[in-house]
């Protein structure tokens, strides 16, 4: 058996492991094993590649794998679960950069035909956009940069000009491909610029969509690099990731009732402002009174948002859950699809606090049982429980499906003070008939409730 044959057969094994790995990632019971399977697939793929006849020396490879692997391992161990979206954004970015470089290097192997040149251009563009786009997403998510959308008058014209220039330069390059061509440098720079331009108009609240989309791009970039170097494993794995990212993007868009185009180009919140101002009386409540209501409740539903993570209240919440259960109440957590900063982020944060995943329910199920809920406790969530999304057609979030907490018998809203949410939209829920505001630090309030139960 020739060595090439052996390598290709191993690639098939790796592809099968990726497929099974992804499949098993689809169920909480098997997910961890699925991730390991896919890691084994990756290890096999990289290992057999070392035997390829094209590889003459190992020095550069070993040193660089150790450096990169070390950085990755360190970051993976250190990162806080609240910062997971930023982390994933950075990993996306490095993947995109790697594909750009692989495409670029493919030009140094001698003369290339125009199809290969075309795929090189694609991997450079997609990889470059993924790289800088992810860095901007990282900056926005980690609040190193203002989360507000950056929009200016000629934005669309500028973007159209960049796309036009990329297409034109790409065409010229494919006609005369060479590694030292200055057209290539221009293309790389334009791809970087376009990545920045594509993400700056997107507001912080829309980041779950952007992360999913960049995830998809990083797969497509690997796919394009696979075409550039004629490697079918890159194509298979890249397109699996590409389609996964597109599905998640679609789920996120549906959860916000907006089209992808609207998310990408509108500059959320910068365009539309509600004409109605909410008026009414806010009814505050103190911990002692909240305890009395909770003690009598037999069905309690938590509705957590990113604010819960910011207040580091998830562990206190889990303690409160235990107190409530000992008291005989049924407790559930309603998770809105876009709660948190990336798809499924709240679930990870609650898992970290040892909340069992079968206690977490999705929005539709939560709304179906809302009428039987005695107390709904909203912690650090705002837009995802905003009734204006159903009622006020001038609201910027009108049409977005929300968790309909006002239908519960009583609603507690834990809030630091009266300020608008991440998207800057007023929330009539705070003025609702059955709403009680529990002002103060969420963690302190919850800890206070736990103390009442224990005392």
């Amino acid at each position, binding site marked *: 058996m020739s060595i090439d044959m052996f390598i290709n057969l191993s690639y098939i094994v790796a592809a099968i492991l*990726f497929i099974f*790995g992804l499949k098993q*990632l*689809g*169920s*909480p019971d098997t997910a*961890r094993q699925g*991730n390991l399977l896919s*890691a084994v697939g990756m290890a096999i793929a990289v290992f057999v*590649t*070392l035997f*390829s006849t*094209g590889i*003459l*020396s190992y020095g*550069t*490879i070993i040193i*660089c794998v150790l*450096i*990169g*692997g070390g*950085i990755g391992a360190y*970051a*993976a161990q250190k990162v806080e679960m609240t910062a*997971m979206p930023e*982390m*994933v954004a950075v990993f*996306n970015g*490095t*993947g995109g*950069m*790697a594909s750009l*470089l*692989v495409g670029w*290097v*493919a030009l*140094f*192997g001698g003369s290339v035909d125009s199809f290969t040149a075309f795929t090189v251009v694609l991997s450079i563009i997609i990889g470059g956009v993924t790289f800088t786009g992810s860095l901007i997403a990282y900056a926005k998510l980690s609040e190193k940069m203002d989360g507000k959308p950056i929009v200016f008058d000629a934005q669309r014209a500028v973007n159209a000009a960049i796309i036009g220039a990329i297409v034109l330069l790409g065409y010229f390059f494919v006609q005369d491909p060479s590694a030292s061509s200055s057209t290539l440098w221009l293309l790389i720079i334009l791809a970087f610029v376009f990545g920045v331009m594509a993400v700056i108009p997107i507001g912080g609240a829309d980041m779950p969509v952007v992360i999913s989309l960049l*995830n998809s791009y990083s797969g497509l970039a*690997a796919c394009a690099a696979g075409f550039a*170097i004629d*490697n*079918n*494993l890159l194509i298979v794995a890249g397109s699996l*990731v590409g*389609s*996964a*990212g597109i*599905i998640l993007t679609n*789920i996120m868009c549906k959860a916000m009732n907006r089209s992808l185009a609207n998310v990408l180009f509108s500059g959320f919140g910068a365009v539309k402002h509600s004409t109605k101002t909410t008026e009414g009386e806010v009814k505050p409540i103190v911990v002692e009174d909240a305890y009395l209501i909770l003690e009598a409740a037999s069905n309690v539903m938590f509705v957590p948002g990113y604010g819960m993570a910011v207040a580091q209240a998830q562990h206190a919440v889990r303690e409160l859950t235990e107190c409530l259960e000992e008291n005989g109440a049924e407790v559930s957590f309603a998770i809105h699809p876009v709660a948190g900063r990336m*798809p*499924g*982020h709240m*679930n990870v944060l609650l*898992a970290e606090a*040892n909340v*069992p*995943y*079968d206690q977490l329910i*999705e929005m539709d199920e939560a709304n179906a049982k809302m009428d039987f809920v005695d107390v709904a406790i909203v912690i650090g969530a705002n837009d995802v429980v905003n009734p204006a999304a159903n009622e006020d057609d001038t609201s910027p979030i009108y049409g977005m499906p929300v968790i309909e907490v006002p239908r519960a018998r009583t609603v507690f809203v834990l809030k630091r003070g009266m300020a608008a949410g991440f998207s800057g939209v007023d929330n009539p829920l705070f003025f609702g008939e059955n709403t009680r505001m529990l002002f103060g630090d969420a963690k302190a309030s919850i800890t206070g409730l736990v103390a009442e139960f224990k005392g």
Partner: protein
Amino acid sequence: MEIIYLTFILVLSIFLGFELISKVPATLHTPLMSGANAISGITLVGAVLAAGADMGGFAELLAGLAVITASVNVVGGYMVTNRMLSMFKKKDTTGAAK
């Protein structure tokens, strides 16, 4: 012919990806995304091929950078996914949740 064959693989894989992912529960979206992200680090294979080709000079520099960035993606992606998934527990089967 090579182009047709590669495109064929591409199209089938995309459909397979859609089928595999479309039924994943929301609970697992974050690990799924970071796990899928780790797989997109497969470009490491291409980077290794380039870095081992002894091209020297600028090309070797680019290839080395490709290996570094792809390794960050692969190692970091798998480890962080594993770390997240190890926290997902079912309700009180062994009492480990306490």
